[in-house]
């Protein structure tokens, strides 16, 4: 299936949001996950399936003025 992550279209096998974070080697505590324009709490990542056509933003808070 194809999904869009951070503006890039990628082909992915069926998985959950948590699988995606693990696959990318990200520290879950530092990730803000937006799934189809909705921010998903970390507690729900294991149970949230990624579907074909989904849009995901993987974000984090960084320094800024």
């Amino acid at each position, binding site marked *: 299936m194809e999904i869009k992550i951070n503006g890039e279209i990628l082909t992915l096998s069926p998985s959950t949001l948590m699988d995606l974070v693990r696959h*990318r080697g990200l520290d879950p505590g530092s990730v803000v996950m937006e799934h189809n324009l909705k921010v998903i709490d970390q507690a729900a990542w294991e149970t949230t399936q990624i579907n074909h056509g989904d849009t995901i933003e993987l974000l984090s*808070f960084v320094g800024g*003025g």
Partner: protein
Amino acid sequence: METSDKLILGKREFSSRLLTGTGKFASNELIPPMLEASGSEIITVALRRIDQGAGDDNILKHIPKQTTLLPNTSGARTAEEAVRIARIARQAGCGDFIKIEVITDMRYLMPDNQETLKATQILVQEGFIVLPYVMPDLTLSYRLQDAGAAAVMPLGSPIGSNQGILTRPIIELIIDSIEIPVIVDAGIGKPSQAAEAMEMGADAVLVNTAIATSEDPVTAGAAFSMAVKAGRMAYRTEMGPESIQANASSPLTGFLRG
């Protein structure tokens, strides 16, 4: 003079009139001691896409719980993008404060006032405490006030340029005219410039680069804190007017003469 002198943003009261930022620190470990030394109670953060392979040091881990987070919408080029970033920041637990920053000019980093006004109108309706970063403009400031902005944040000079308050004449008009707080943001490179803003009657200043890129950000934070307090105290004492002629401060009667 009444002793209580709080900065009020939205319905929140703050004792410190120095807002700080988290950008450009050599080490984020310096942020907690800088906050301690500067007394700053509000600090900005930004939101970014995670690049694959990039380190993901969560800036929020370095900010003490009692500090109010002021997420900015940097990276936004339109009102719509700013609104989306603001919603994400709030949903991610950053609270209701938002600094609107819409920039399309990458050389001077000048804010887009029109898009900023649009974003302000939308986000106020959604219950945000909106602090718009703008090019100083009196008419726009009235419109932001009418839209329900919690403050206006006119720039002193380009972001990170350390040029001080080049826009002083316009900021003075804004301070003189509008009811909501005026926070001078951007370009303040030295404590004396922060003091200048406060003597002019600004309600607060936001300083990031000058503190963060100093050789000693903790001491710089303390220096800015003193300057902001001194400037505010001076403003409240209603300093005397300037004049071209001298006004003697010692008696001028003939002494030892005749």
